[in-house]
């Protein structure tokens, strides 16, 4: 491979992050935000989203693509939060308890999701996506009709006026930013959520460590070639289920961390957003359906949210309408996923072609 080829390969591989870099480089000056505001916002979003995005890594490793089913984990986290709110447990203790009670739920959801996805091999993504919608219905059924009637809920503040069902907005005031402000640090007027970042750091280490375990190795093997992995004696189906379970549990924690920062929970919408934005951010970071690293996660969140923050204001100053910027960011979140999926499918086809061409070339040489 010669040098210019290498450079063009670099550009092709990193096309998505580069485009975002250019877009934000253009849009930041137009938006007229101050650097300290931007840094503060980015830090907040980084601490909010990193966990959710990181939870996507493990299923990618296991070859199951982007886990659109992570919304199941988010749902589990929300159910935990509802309970904790109802019992009126506040602060970090509340978050911890929410995480503890939602863990078995998340494991159950992840297990179900894993079983369903094993039945839909080759179309995991679309299935996990629909599964997310389906479980959303179940979640609504339980939370909107079951809570307060079948599941005891004490606090009238949480319930709808009819006496059962959780209100559309759940207030998390007691837990609001309790993790972020656990270890306060303020540099030049910018608040840094140290504890959250510590947690994220620990989790990154976990992912790195996990890759080195036998299970991680099995997952990578399964992800690359299921048939070979199976013939080598790896329990492929089990490995796939475990990867989804881990992802779901982590997404559940991610959602709790996310919501403690936001401070309020849209009982019936928060989780829906979680999936799309996490996946879009990861893809913006240069990850593909089959390969993603921790670096992709952080570059992705920074670039994606940079564009996200500045686009409404940039749209306003540029076109005189903030609404356009709003829609623009909706477009990029969906567009980027579409683009990444297309590129992935396309590249896979091309690689196949190229492998065949190479084979042909070798044959020719031997002849």
């Amino acid at each position: 491979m010669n040098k210019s080829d290498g450079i063009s390969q670099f550009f092709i591989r990193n096309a998505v992050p580069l485009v975002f870099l250019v877009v934000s480089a253009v849009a930041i000056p137009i938006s007229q935000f101050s650097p300290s505001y931007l840094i503060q916002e980015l830090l907040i979003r980084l601490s909010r989203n990193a966990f959710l995005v990181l939870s996507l890594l493990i299923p990618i490793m296991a070859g199951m693509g982007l886990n659109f089913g992570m919304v199941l984990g988010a749902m589990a986290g929300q159910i935990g939060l509802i309970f904790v709110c109802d019992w009126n447990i506040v602060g970090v203790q509340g978050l911890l308890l929410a995480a503890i009670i939602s863990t078995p739920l998340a494991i159950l959801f992840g297990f179900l999701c894993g079983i369903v996805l094993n039945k839909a091999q080759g179309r995991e993504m679309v299935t996990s996506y629909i599964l997310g919608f389906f479980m959303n219905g179940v979640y609504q059924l339980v939370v909107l009709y079951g809570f307060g009637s079948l599941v005891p809920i004490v606090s009238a503040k949480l319930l709808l006026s009819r006496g059962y069902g959780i209100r559309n907005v759940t207030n998390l005031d007691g837990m609001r930013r309790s993790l972020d402000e656990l270890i306060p640090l303020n540099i030049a007027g910018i608040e840094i959520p140290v504890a959250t970042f510590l947690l994220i750091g620990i989790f990154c280490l976990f992912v790195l460590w996990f890759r080195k375990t036998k299970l991680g190795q099995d997952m990578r093997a399964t992800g690359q070639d299921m048939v070979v992995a199976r013939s080598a004696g790896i329990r492929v189906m089990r490995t796939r289920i475990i990867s989804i379970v881990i992802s779901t549990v982590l997404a559940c924690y991610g959602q709790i961390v996310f919501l403690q920062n936001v401070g309020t929970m849209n009982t019936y919408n928060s989780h829906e957003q979680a999936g799309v934005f996490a996946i879009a951010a990861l893809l913006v970071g240069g990850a593909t359906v089959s390969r993603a690293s921790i670096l992709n996660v952080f570059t992705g969140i920074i670039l994606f949210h940079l564009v996200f923050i500045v686009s409404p204001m940039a749209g306003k100053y540029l076109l005189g309408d903030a609404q356009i910027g709003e829609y623009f960011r909706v477009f990029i979140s969906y567009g980027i996923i579409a683009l990444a999926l297309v590129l992935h499918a396309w590249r896979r086809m091309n690689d196949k072609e190229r492998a065949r061409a190479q084979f042909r070339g070798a044959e020719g040489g031997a002849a």
Partner: protein
Amino acid sequence: MSIKRVCINLGLVLCLAGLIAWCVLTGKAYDIVLENTPTTVAGAEQPALEAVHVIIDKQEPVLMLEGDRIISTAIGVKHKIRIDVLDEDDKVLESRSHTYTIHDLGTPPTLNIPAVFAASKAEK
């Protein structure tokens, strides 16, 4: 399954249980009714205090005038309440502290300031 494994798992389960207990004990927030109304403690009539600052744990001081009933929150089981009696210039005349657990207060948890004030005096 080795003994070691059983021990480690058992230890973890205990840790988890401990963690849950800790969360519930130290993280639960209670609504406490504070009353600054006349009351009787051990046969002795306690008049309401004219103006006090009530400070639960390290929260912001709450100003209570004679006859006030206020709902405040307290996180955890054990609390230290401090009562600052104020004069007309909002200067602290006298400051008294009292420790109690939430279960001492009945349901709903109610704290009568003159009673607490009297009790803490008795302690001294």
